């Protein structure tokens, strides 16, 4: 493992450890929130009831962002060390269908073909993008 990857791995473990412990202690901190975001947050809490407090809304959003970003970095690190395990776009489309219990989960060939087509114009497409596209194609064909 190269030095940079070791540094990233160590940082990931620190982030993971910090996210896994309780939130019993808290510190006031000064973050410059844009005025519009602060007011939108206040309305979301006070009127829409999206969270009990603005702090809860902000910390939940921050936690979700950190967990997702850390997982993404962890997977990329894993693929760098093990290139053979990186899923293809077709694999991801099948996995997305399986997780949702989508009918196309039984049609892996269709999803792999759709992935091969869509990646030519959308190289950043996700498995969900392919699944949606394949479903739309299927419905259009049936209409």
């Amino acid at each position, binding site marked *: 493992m190269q030095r940079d990857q070791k540094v990233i791995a160590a940082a990931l*473990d620190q982030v993971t450890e910090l996210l896994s412990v309780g939130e019993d202690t808290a510190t006031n901190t000064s973050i410059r929130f844009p005025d519009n975001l602060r007011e939108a947050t206040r309305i979301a809490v006070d009127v829409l009831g999206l969270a009990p407090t603005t702090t809860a809304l902000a910390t939940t959003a921050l936690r979700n962002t950190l967990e*997702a970003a850390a997982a*993404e970095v962890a*997977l990329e690190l894993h693929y760098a*060390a093990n290139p053979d395990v990186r899923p293809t776009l077709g*694999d991801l489309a099948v*996995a997305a269908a*399986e997780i949702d*219990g989508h009918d196309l989960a039984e049609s892996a060939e269709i999803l792999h073909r759709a992935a091969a087509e869509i990646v030519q114009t959308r190289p950043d497409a996700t498995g969900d993008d392919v699944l949606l596209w394949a479903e739309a194609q299927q419905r259009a064909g049936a209409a």
Partner: protein
Amino acid sequence: MSRLVLLDNEAVRALSSARHPKHRKVISHLQVITTRRKRSRSTTVGVPTSVRVEAGWDRRNQAWALANRLGITDMALDQTVADVAAEIRNGLGTHISVADAHLGAVAQGVDSEVTVITNDPEDITAAAGSARATIVRI
């Protein structure tokens, strides 16, 4: 609606080693979930703690670094869940493992949609009972 994705013993074992024949398949599912979370789709991955025990997943052990880093939540076997798990096992028989009964109890106790990644669809479907979980066979 939010979705909870649960891992069984085999899925955890597959995740633990890049040489495991089902590793890439489990990684595919976790990659999809990670991408959805980055897009703020409400998706959680959980592992019942008894599944973790059965698979040998010790979070303090560096050998489990990848699994630890993927934001997989422990689903505890507290009193309420233990009662439901015991009820499941009493009803279905002791061929249902403690870990699978725990997984079934977790599935039955959440409001969200549930997906289970497993190599034992029959037992998991039975254990999940009324939760009617989406089963992904690996």
